[in-house]
């Protein structure tokens, strides 16, 4: 009897032990099963079309209902983050009636007062702040103090608002007609016709989601550029590859431009090429000037964020790397591979932006970029000093009573020196988009400034 009870006890213990082990095993296997099931669900790529998108849907939040992941990135362009040489800082200000913004970016004029000397007599000497993210493009343009000191045309809307739908509405269905009409309106009138900063429809075809160029400035600019390379009647939307489009949609706005003639037609000066000397040659030929320099009387030019042009001269462009590869890199969300619509500096997203191709630690990659930018920035300062020296020399020569004819060569050099310098200064990469090209341009600029000073001694 005693034997039986011991063996029953022992077998009970054994069963309990097996039960505990199998319980753990079952829990583990079922947990794994559920995990595998979840991963399989992710891989199904569900797409729910909850709204119908048409060629007149300009509200990004409507598009966002069909594409919540992309929209989520897009609305994050409100972030204000500094990098070492770029990026914007959120500065608090007291809103006024004229300017209801409570946050702006830091003033570049306060950071470097030499810019005021360079732009003397031009609206940029009044107010120039570090650019903020896409979300602010319309507000920052509407409320800049530059609006108070000069009358801007409706042309500005081309790149400061989502204009595809407003252009078509204004042109009675014709994009180009709408563009031409808005160019000739006063800024404040045109401002009433637009609502959104850059939106989904500016780069995407609503029925296929394919990339699409909608900005007349680029449609015409790239046609002129291609014509100069022997390609006739270039139609970017029909002839560009998908990878080219991943740079071209950004090139719709991140370019050098001017307003042509009395009708203020937005024009990209590319018919001789994209390099700084090609563009200057273009301006020389049509004798264009942005303004007359207040201190020297030189007919000056202002370069405007020529990112597309600078990028095109660099090693990344040569290797087929488009803007979107670094500024909107692919990211994984579940099993979906999407391009990150939080457009920002690659320095804030080195893992996805750089390490896809460059297998080195983040710190080292950042170091490499900052080395290039540091060198560019230091040479930019040298060029800026040289330009200020030239401007001061022309000023004193002017007060000393030299004639316009005697000052002409020095003014010409000033025009060139400051356009070259501004081509790097206004370009938003501190040289990174094309390091050697940026350095070359700054070297030329310094030379022009010094040659200008020499010309005054003759």
């Amino acid at each position, binding site marked *: 009897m005693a034997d039986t009870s011991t063996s029953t006890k022992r*077998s009970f213990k*054994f*069963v309990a032990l*097996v039960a505990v082990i*199998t319980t753990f095993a079952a829990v583990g296997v079922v947990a794994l099963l559920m995990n*595998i099931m979840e991963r399989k669900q*992710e*891989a199904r790529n569900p797409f729910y079309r909850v709204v119908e998108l048409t060629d007149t849907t300009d509200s990004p939040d409507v598009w966002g209902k069909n594409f919540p992941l992309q929209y989520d990135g897009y609305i994050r362009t409100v972030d204000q983050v500094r990098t070492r040489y770029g990026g914007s800082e959120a500065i608090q200000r007291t809103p006024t009636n004229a300017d209801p913004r409570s946050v702006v970016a830091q003033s570049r004029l306060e950071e470097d007062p030499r810019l005021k000397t360079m732009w003397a007599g031009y609206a940029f000497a009044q107010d120039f702040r570090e650019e903020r993210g896409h979300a602010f493009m319309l507000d920052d343009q509407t409320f800049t103090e530059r609006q108070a000191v000069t009358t801007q045309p409706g042309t500005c809307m081309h790149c400061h608002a989502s204009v595809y739908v407003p252009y078509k509405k204004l042109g009675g269905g014709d994009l180009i007609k709408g563009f031409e009409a808005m160019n000739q309106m006063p800024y404040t009138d045109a401002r009433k016709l637009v609502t959104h900063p850059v939106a989904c429809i500016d780069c995407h075809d609503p029925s296929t989601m394919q990339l699409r160029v909608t900005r007349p400035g680029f449609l015409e600019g790239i046609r002129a550029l291609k014509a100069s390379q022997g390609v006739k009647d270039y139609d970017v939307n029909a002839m560009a590859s998908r990878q080219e489009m991943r740079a071209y949609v950004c090139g719709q706005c991140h370019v050098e431009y001017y307003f042509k003639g009395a009708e203020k037609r937005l024009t990209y000066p590319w018919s001789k090429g994209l390099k700084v000397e090609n563009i200057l040659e273009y301006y020389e030929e049509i004798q264009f000037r942005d303004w007359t320099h207040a201190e020297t009387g030189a007919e000056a030019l202002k370069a405007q964020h020529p990112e597309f042009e600078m990028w095109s001269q660099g090693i990344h462009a040569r290797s087929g790397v488009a803007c979107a590869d670094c500024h909107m890199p692919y990211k994984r969300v579940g099993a979906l591979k999407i391009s990150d619509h939080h457009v920002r500096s690659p320095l804030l997203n080195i*893992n996805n932006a750089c390490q896809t191709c460059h297998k080195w630690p983040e710190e080292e990659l950042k170091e490499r970029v900052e080395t290039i930018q540091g060198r560019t920035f230091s040479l930019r300062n040298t060029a800026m000093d040289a330009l200020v020296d030239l401007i001061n020399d022309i000023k004193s020569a002017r007060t000393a009573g030299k004639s316009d004819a005697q000052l002409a060569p020095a003014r010409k050099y000033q025009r060139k020196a400051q356009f070259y310098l501004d081509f790097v200064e206004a370009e938003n990469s501190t040289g990174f988009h094309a390091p050697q090209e940026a350095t070359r341009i700054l070297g030329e600029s310094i030379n022009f400034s010094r040659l200008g000073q020499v010309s005054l001694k003759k």
Partner: protein
Amino acid sequence: MNSGTFTGLFLGALIGTVVGVGAYTFVYAKGSSYLTDNPAACANCHIMNDQYDGWVKSSHRAVATCNDCHTPDGFFGKYMTKMSNGFWHSYAFTTGDFHEPIEIKQHNRDITRQACRKCHQDIIEAIEGTHAEESTLSCLPCHGSVGHLTR
């Protein structure tokens, strides 16, 4: 029914349940596909989709599968590598603890470096000449995209 039979039945049911759930999981997760050479198996879990899509369009798709370049020669080496990678990849993917974009580890890179020799031994010999002993020649830095471009 005496207590011995009861214990036996109970244990059998316990173990059978676990084996059953395990077998179902194995089939549901396409476990047997990992014993084959079919590249689609490597993209069973979506993390390798980019590599798989790249391979489909690569110059080597007609002559080499994943296993040709990512496992060593010989039955033992091949299945040891599959087993080890299979375990660690599953572990990483299940826990979600891995570097993105995914990167090949040194050990696996060495395997791939050697795998070029399975077909291209002649040309590599011609390059190495008499220095074969101390050669650290690798095809990968320049020809890394022949299998699959990942950008």
